[in-house]
């Protein structure tokens, strides 16, 4: 962790201040600094956020890719985190200096998101055992001014919330294998449901008291901290102890209660922000659009059931015709062409078993 060297007098000043509930910048122990969230800063990502909390400055971008699910979880999609601690933040991160911090943060994020309720991973599956969406969350740390973990977790939640996942309009059959066909319309996308996604509340212990949203000076006064993942209902998804301090059982319980309360408030603010970004985007697309445009045709509606084999040739041809509206191909012509090219394997088109 990027730390700064403080003299004993400075440390004493901070610790005594915290004990009297007045911190060096005038806040009380449980006050949060104000944050700025800017959306869609990276144009070639599916969703991006720049989040700035005092001196801490992070850019987060999500990119959606097509991948295959893990063998032990054939019906779940994938969510992957990658943290890049750029040397812009601190010369310590030069070369491979930031690797340890990145891996710590990655681990905490993964563990807090791996609870079953956080994000509906089933909605990220396209064809069980074959294809799923892989959402890559890339985090770039531009500046590190304390409370990095909280900022990153908040940014991840916001970024996943505004991530535009392209809709699957149908299935193409290559050599009898179903392959998803993605929409070519850039405004046809769905959003993830992030209402239950966790935020992380870090509680460093300065002297005898826990503080929230510590500055980098306060962090270097504390021996260790607790990182607690909290959902909007106040449930705890993960607890990590970072550093080399020890806690009494009693203080631990109190701190977790505190984190749950703070986390609930953070979640509420974040969800409001996500909704406002989404509504701005909707207006940007076209104010006159009918309400249901974004969800015009989903995979489930098209396939009508879990079984992939129910797709009919006619449906696939409709999808193709929709994809190339300017082409001169009519629907029967296309179907004939596809049949001629042996596009569908015969056993699939004839029967539904």
């Amino acid at each position: 962790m990027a730390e700064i060297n403080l003299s004993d007098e400075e440390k004493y000043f901070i610790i005594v201040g915290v004990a009297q509930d007045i911190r060096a910048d005038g806040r009380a122990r449980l006050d949060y600094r104000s944050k700025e969230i800017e959306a869609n800063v990276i144009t070639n990502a599916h969703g991006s956020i720049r989040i700035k909390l005092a001196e801490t400055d992070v850019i987060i971008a999500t990119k959606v890719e097509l991948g295959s699910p893990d063998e032990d979880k054939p019906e779940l999609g994938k969510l992957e985190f990658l943290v890049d601690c750029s040397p812009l933040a601190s010369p310590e991160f030069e070369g491979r200096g930031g690797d340890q911090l990145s891996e710590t943060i990655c681990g905490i994020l993964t563990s807090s998101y791996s609870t079953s309720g956080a994000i509906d991973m089933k909605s990220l599956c396209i064809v069980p055992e074959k294809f799923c969406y892989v959402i890559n969350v890339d985090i770039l740390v531009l500046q590190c001014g304390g409370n990095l973990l909280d900022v990153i977790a908040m940014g991840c939640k916001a970024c996943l919330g505004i991530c535009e996942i392209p809709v699957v309009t149908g299935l193409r059959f290559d050599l009898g294998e179903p392959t998803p066909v993605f929409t070519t319309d850039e405004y046809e996308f769905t959003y993830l449901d992030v209402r239950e996604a966790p935020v992380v509340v870090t509680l460093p212990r300065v002297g005898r008291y826990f503080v929230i949203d510590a500055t980098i000076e306060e962090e270097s006064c504390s021996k260790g901290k607790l990182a607690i993942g909290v959902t909007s209902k106040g449930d705890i998804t993960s607890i990590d102890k970072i550093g080399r301090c020890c806690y009494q059982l009693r203080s631990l319980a109190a701190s977790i209660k505190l984190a749950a309360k703070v986390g609930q408030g953070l979640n509420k603010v974040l969800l409001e922000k996500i909704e406002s970004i989404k509504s701005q985007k909707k207006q940007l697309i076209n104010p006159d659009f009918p309400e249901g445009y974004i969800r015009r045709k989903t995979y489930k509606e098209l396939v009508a059931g879990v079984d992939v084999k129910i797709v009919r040739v006619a449906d696939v041809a409709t999808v193709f015709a929709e994809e190339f509206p300017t082409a001169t191909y009519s629907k029967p012509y296309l179907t004939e062409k596809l049949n001629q090219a042996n596009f569908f394997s015969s056993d699939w088109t004839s029967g539904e078993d």
Partner: protein
Amino acid sequence: MFCTQGAGSHSLPVSWPETYGKMSRQTTVDNLWTQNIRPDGRSPTEMRQIKCSMGVFDKDKGGGGSAYFQIGNTKAVATVYGPHEGRASQKKVGAANQDKMTVNFEYSSACFSTNDRKTSTKADRKSMEMSCRLKSIMDNVFVHHLSEGSQVDIYIELIQDDGGAYAACINAVTLACIDAGVPLQDFVVACSATMAHGIPMIDISAAEKSTGMPELTLGILSKSKEIVVMEQNNLLKLIYFSDVLNLALDGCQRMLQVLEETCYHKFSLLQRVIEANLRRERT
């Protein structure tokens, strides 16, 4: 998707699908070439919109400087630490030439900078090469005798690459060095140029680059007009070379104007603050 950002008076009146829905994309692009309009709506001599600022991060540690440079959708951030006392490991290397300033350069590009995602954060060959090239450029421009035996750390991060990234990086580093107060001989300004259908064009975008058009990146010292960077890839016919070079030179001049304006803005602001402080002290 075509980006209309930064398009000026020559931009298309409406976005792509409404007007050209009935035509195939390729035909339309060909039609545009005959009217001297590039795929993103610019004219051949029109640059994308430039935004730059100095001192983007408030740094009170190590006397650093920073700068942000954006041209179209290409975005770069540079930070400079120093000049400070050389670190022990660097001193050993620099022992042979104690009369020089040691330059420590690291370039990295964000995972999400290009359309294909980078899967690891470790420095790959491409970024190491970029570090070397940028380092050698800046090494030539520093005034070494003013801070002998000291060290400068320059870090640059490419946040998004939409064409002309090399030129953008050079401009960002120049601004950051000025912000940090590292002695430079002169401004280093860079600009890219390209050529297609017999028309030389300034400031190549990623969409144009992907069609196989040549890219010439030119960097000059502003006063002496000496060329410090020249790099070209892809095929460019010799008869067109001087045209493209002249256009790139013109681009460098325009880029210099923008950088100078940024510096002027920054330092006039600084001067006002200093004057205000002096006035307050007197009263």
